[in-house]
């Protein structure tokens, strides 16, 4: 005899399937916990780099102030025609999937040859700005990773919580319920069998 509980029948086969599913869910939860811890560890590693932002911003501001100072000394035209010596600065975005997290690496395809600039004042400024810009690119790359990791950490933690607090207890209840039901059925069956045997022997109960 079988009973329907939450859409599943309390049969021995169902119990086995439910136990297997519970085992699988627990394993999944463990993997998600591992992923969560790994993301948290990576975030901890990346966060100090973001704290460097103020230093990079200061450096960029310093480079900009030097640029203004140099610009008024040598003039716009000198800056413009010196800039023609510099080759193009090209970067490429590389999309990566790490543990299901989408990350972007910025790869420099061709560096500008700032050392080719003939005017030393313009070359000096170009070097300062380029170095500050490289640091900003690195920072943007890190910030983008942190944003993606943080978002994924939030999702993973939510999934772990859902498994831990809702799905696993629900399955455990279900397995326990099916076990109880099966036990009851077995007892009922035993009592019934015992009754029939006793009646056959002619004993009055």
């Amino acid at each position, binding site marked *: 005899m079988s009973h329907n509980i939450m859409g599943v029948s309390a049969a021995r086969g169902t119990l086995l399937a439910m136990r297997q599913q519970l085992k699988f869910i627990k394993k999944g939860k463990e993997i998600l916990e591992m992923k969560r811890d790994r993301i948290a560890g990576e975030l901890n590693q990346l966060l100090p780099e973001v704290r460097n932002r103020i230093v990079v911003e200061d450096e960029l501001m310093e480079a900009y102030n030097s640029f203004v100072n140099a*610009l008024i000394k040598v003039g716009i*035209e000198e800056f413009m025609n010196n800039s*023609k010596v510099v080759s193009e600065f090209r970067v490429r975005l590389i999309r990566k999937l790490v543990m299901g997290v989408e990350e972007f690496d910025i790869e420099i395809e061709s560096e500008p040859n700032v*050392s080719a600039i003939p005017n030393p004042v313009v070359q*000096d400024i170009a070097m300062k700005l380029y170095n500050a810009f490289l640091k900003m690119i690195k920072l943007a790359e890190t910030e983008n990773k942190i944003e993606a990791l943080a978002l994924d950490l939030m999702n993973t933690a939510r999934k772990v919580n859902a498994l831990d607090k809702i799905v696993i207890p629900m399955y455990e209840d279900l397995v326990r319920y099916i076990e109880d039901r099966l036990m009851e059925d077995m007892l009922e069956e035993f009592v019934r069998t015992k009754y029939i045997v006793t009646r056959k022997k002619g004993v009055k109960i």
Partner: protein
Amino acid sequence: MMRPDYIYIITRAHGLSTHLFTEDDYKSFVRLPDIVSFAEAVSKGDYIRKIGSIPREQINGKTLASAFGEVYVERFLYAIKISSGKVKNFVDMFVRRIEIENIKRILRAKFSGRAVSEEDLIKVPREFTYVNIVAMLESPTFDDALYHLTPSPYKEAIEFSQYAKSIGSPFPVELGIETEYFRRVVNTASKVKKGREVEKLLKVEYGTKLIYYILSIKILGGQVIYLEKYSDKMSRLMLIEPYIFNDFIRAKEDTALDVLNRSGYKWIVKYIEESVLKRSVSDLYYWSSKAFKEYAESYAARNPLNLVFLLWYLYSVEFEYRNLYTIALAKELDVKPEDIPIL
């Protein structure tokens, strides 16, 4: 006794120098609140026509710098017009520095394969150029552009192209062209009567520029050792012995100043010392220019009846151009008056 054409040109130089802005003018310009009021204040004398033609809404650092540049070129060309004989040859050769600037602009673009057109150049009448600028502009490569220097007085600069390629910068060729230019100007100055003082001031200018270039490259960590090969040629255009110049090329930037103390450029050390110690290239540029300007001023004051005065006038035209675009850009970028570097 001086020749009448000398007396005429020196007198004209004295007259023309009164058209230039004075230190007090600059002091009042830097205190102006914005670029429009600066444009109004500067819009007098030689500038009235150029600046008056700029619509008020189009007044900015670039348009003003362009107007100042046009006046600068016109003043140079006028100096050629009013001179005659050997003085005319000298002024004509001196004014070729505009052509040099145009050649540099073309070579810079060609070096990296970038597009360059006549709009990127300083407008100068064809008769004031040795080089076929149009052909240079149309050259497909750096080497082809250099080839057009062959029939010009700057052909010797072509040998610097191997260094340009080895260090990956057109700077050696530019230096070669400038060196050849100065050799020619000094040569025309030597043919002018009592031209020794003029020669000396030209050598001071070339030397000051070269000192700035070499020290800057040292500060930026670049190579200048290849210049040793040309030290004889270069030192002839400077107030420095070839062996001292070689020491200067080989020395590190701080010890290079000690080397300068042994040369005819001892006076420049007090101006540039701090910039070198601070390793600031833009300060070095400013202070070496300032040093040369003050040297030229005092030299001209000591020789008011010499052709040096005309040369000083031409330098002053250049310094005025620099000061005006500096103020225009500083006003546009809201730089504090005390931070505006006036020469």
